[in-house]
């Protein structure tokens, strides 16, 4: 077990940062990002002996993170309340910090799985196939979700200067 734990520590040390950032882009909050990352790391530890023998343990870890986040989203007290009035769009950006907030606000308006598709594809740099595997869906679904997600972002980009997208 000690050897297993040493391997686990080494693996986590090199992935923790990226995992937290991915979680942050999914949920938009660093505290929750830490919670989601912890959940994924605990699951990884629980199955480390099996996962460490896999060819791509990163995929497993990513799946655990996504599942943790999607599960969190499904909890009733996490569900957002619908309102009759659309929230205000991000203010005109004046610099990098505004852009950072703007992209988070834009992502937050997307449905969870669509947001996950964009984060996996454009932040984690996964292929369509890898994204489909991470989300447990077909490549066709990933393509369509990507297209819809990008369309939605474009539509919301009005008034947010500086953010352009490359498909």
């Amino acid at each position: 077990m000690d050897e297993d734990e040493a391997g686990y520590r080494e693996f986590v040390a090199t992935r923790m940062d990226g995992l937290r950032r991915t979680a942050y882009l999914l949920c938009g909050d660093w505290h929750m990002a830490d919670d989601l990352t912890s959940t994924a790391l605990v699951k990884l530890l629980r199955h480390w002996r099996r996962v460490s023998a896999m060819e791509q343990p990163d995929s497993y870890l990513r799946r655990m993170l996504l599942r943790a986040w999607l599960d969190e989203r499904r909890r009733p007290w996490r569900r957002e309340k619908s309102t009759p009035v659309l929230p205000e769009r991000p203010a005109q950006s004046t610099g990098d910090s505004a852009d950072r907030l703007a992209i988070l606000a834009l992502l937050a308006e997307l449905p969870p799985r669509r947001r996950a598709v964009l984060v996996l594809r454009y932040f984690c740099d996964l292929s369509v196939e890898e994204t489909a595997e991470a989300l447990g869906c077909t490549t066709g679904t990933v393509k369509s979700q990507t297209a819809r997600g990008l369309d939605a972002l474009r539509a919301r980009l009005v008034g947010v200067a500086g953010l352009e997208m490359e498909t």
Partner: protein
Amino acid sequence: MEHLTDAMRAAAATPPPTAIDLEQLIADERRNSRLRRWGAGLGAVVAVLLIVGGVAFLPGLTRSNGDGGLRAGDPGSETKTEPVPPQPPASTAQREEATRLLQVLADALVAVAGPASGWTVDGTMWEAQTGLTGNGAPLPGYTGSGHRVDGNSLDKVYVLARRAPMPPDTTCVKDAAYDVDCTVEMRADGSQLWRTTMTGGNQFTRVVEVYRPDGTHIMVGDTAVGGSEPVLSTDQLIAIADTPALAPTVL
């Protein structure tokens, strides 16, 4: 920023220091892993008891010793599944006493939790050997249970009433493995009060045991299944355990 990738990278570019303590996480998982193994063994014992006893009570959630509560260094922390001897049938007097104790339990629940608290008593029965899940002497007594469903949460209350000697050793498991926390108090009336909480396996159990000076041993527990805290507080469980009528008069 020219495209989405850059925007995302910039948005996550300056993370605050992480709150994740990897060493703590590993230590917690080690402990939970032991708890899961222990819980699985305990589940087997409870299953045997349910089959033999024929009632849905859960005495096994706390290791009630025949002559005491949870002890430091208790070898029972590694659950042993021992063969359960056949139970002799209860006499008429014992069945009547079980019925009386069931009403006492129902009244006590109403008294501490209110008439609209949603508790339902399931049953009470005499057993020749209560405390089969512990290491102490299996003594005759009565066990009973009740339940409360609220949405997706389930609480089970269980009670043990018997006569047992007051434990001379009051060393209590405190912050030990398996997420067990326990305290012992010697009360002014000469009784011993044991308070225990156990978490893990998606269950949270709160138990109190009272050893009265007259030799009565009452254990009352509330287990919440599903991650929430038990509905009954420790004080409410103590109030039930201290109910004077909750004492076996026929054994």
